[in-house]
């Protein structure tokens, strides 16, 4: 059983602002039946201020609580301030959500964004302009994933799945999600999934003059690539080893990844 805060339970059992708002002038719709949750957010905006808000939600307890909490949070808020509301704000308002349920708050933030676009007369966010779809099972775009990573400081594939649902179905997009995580949180990590690819890049870099500069072609052997550490075996006289190592490291840092460290393995 999920451990919901009292506030989540309260907003689920006694949700505020249910149902369509008859005089709404901004509507935001996200999610779908197939995804397992969906939210339709209604706003009434006057003079740049959200004077009323309501919701209709299909989903679990935390989806209903997140939607209801959102409407309470933004009532009375200026549109420009509402634009800054993130899913974290919704989760915080509820005293936190189980990490598996973070996506419920993300749905709230997305609906708010969609409603404000609707108010401003902007077209609904099309995925073409939002960036490509990464997860086809749950129809999650790259933009949504990037935003969730940024706002929630997500670190792992598992984090992204729980926050956005992307990758929670057929798993076909896991590599793409890891690529996005690597891109955003790079932190000096070398892509570890594809050592072969990295190895190829290393070999190509080495053949741009480095190998040819050595007294013999097999003077430097690559033994392994793990993370950013490239282990090599060097068959050169002692006095030339240090230079060769330094030269190789500089080359790989320039051509492959700036964080690469080359280490000699003494066999």
């Amino acid at each position: 059983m999920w451990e919901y805060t009292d506030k989540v339970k309260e907003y689920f059992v006694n949700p505020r602002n249910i149902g369509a708002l008859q005089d709404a002038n901004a509507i935001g719709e996200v999610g779908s039946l197939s995804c397992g949750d969906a939210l339709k957010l209604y706003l009434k905006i006057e003079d740049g201020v959200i004077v009323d808000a309501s919701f209709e939600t299909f989903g679990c307890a935390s989806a209903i609580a997140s939607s209801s909490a959102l409407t309470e949070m933004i009532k009375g808020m200026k549109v420009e301030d509402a634009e800054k509301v993130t899913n974290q704000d919704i989760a915080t308002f509820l005293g936190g959500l189980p990490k598996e349920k973070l996506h419920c708050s993300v749905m709230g933030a997305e609906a708010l964004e969609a409603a404000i676009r609707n108010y401003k007369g902007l077209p609904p966010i099309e995925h073409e302009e939002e960036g490509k779809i990464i997860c086809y099972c749950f129809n999650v775009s790259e933009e949504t994933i990037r935003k969730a990573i940024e706002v929630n400081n997500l670190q792992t594939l598992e984090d992204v799945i729980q926050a956005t649902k992307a990758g929670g179905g057929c798993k076909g997009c896991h590599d793409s999600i890891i690529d996005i995580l690597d891109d955003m949180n790079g932190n000096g990590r070398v892509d570890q999934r594809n050592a072969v690819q990295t190895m190829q890049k290393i070999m190509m870099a080495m053949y741009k003059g480095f190998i040819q500069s050595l007294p013999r072609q097999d003077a430097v052997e690559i033994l392994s690539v793990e993370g950013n550490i490239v282990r090599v075996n060097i068959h050169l006289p002692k006095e030339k080893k240090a230079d060769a190592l330094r030269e190789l490291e500089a080359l790989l840092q320039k051509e492959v990844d700036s964080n690469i460290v080359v280490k000699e393995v003494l066999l």
Partner: protein
Amino acid sequence: MKNKVIYLDNNATTQVDSQVVEAMLPFFTEKYGNASSMHSFGGNIGKDIRNARSQVASLLGARPDEIYFVSCGTEGDNSAIFSSVLTQPEKRHVITSAVEHSAVVATMNELKRRGYDVTVLGVDERGQISLDELRNAIREDTALISMMWANNETGTIFPIEEISAIAEEHGIQFHTDAVQAVGKMPINLKELKGIDYLVCSGHKLHAPKGIGVLYVRKGVRYKPYIIGGHQEYGKRAGTENTPYIIAMGVAAQLAQENLEKEQTEVAALRDMLEKELIARIPDSRINGDTVHRLPNTTNISFKNVEGEAILLLLDGHGICASSGSACTSGSLESSHVLRAMGVPFEYAHGSIRFSLSRYTTKEDIEKVIEVMPGIISRLREISPFKK
């Protein structure tokens, strides 16, 4: 005010029968000896264990020396499947269904990782496999067919007699996870010679958690999963869990005595619940095979509402049930069983399983019938999908 608990989640676990508790207690305090000991204080325990073995054998229509006590259903399933493939090293293929319990699904995945070919047979909308597909899936090197007796989520009963006969005819071993079936329907293994391995679990039939039974047909070669001492005829090492074995025996005997009640009274309450809910709540449907089904189980879907929300509102009334919705499972997809059956997603997310027991009363069922329509209409009111 705290509501009385209305427990309709008996396929998850059951209340331990007070007679079972009473029978097992002396084995903690007075008769705590080790059956393997030379002294009579311990050695006498062997008789009690033999008695429990006979009680279980009687429920299953098996011989006592075909009954081995294990720690749980999962251990039994793991042990049976591994034993089957390891004792037939020349065979590299197994057949299973798409709706098995995770104890079997995970073991099959492990076999795949170890290089075995695993054929997974799909099911129709009732959750039934096709016997023709089964026959077509059989190969020269098929070591094992593993199919559950009854499904935990829908209660659908597989045609085990036919499946085991097909296995026998082709000289293929057959394992059945009968965790949900044993105690709820008559089983007579003497008449089903094609079943080589059967597994059941204590806590599904009013014994405590922590005890299960593995049946291995006499004459079937067996490779133990847990090795060590000579206990359980060398098939399952580890000092006998005497209190729980005694509990399992008594629970088996009580299950046998109550089999008729399960088939009649429990089934009648289930039917009443199902009929009333379907009649009172529009856009609701039954998932599973309504003909070949456990007497205690109903799985009902309510269109356009989400299962977890239903469960939490039921919980507010003290009613315990379960759901195949994505949100309850921790994964993001609805249950693999409902997906395999092709239940449309607008129904799959709103599936609720009620599983009754011999303790379920008419008042319990009336209470559910009373509150359920309000819960569904309330959630539908909140939902943006109003047909």
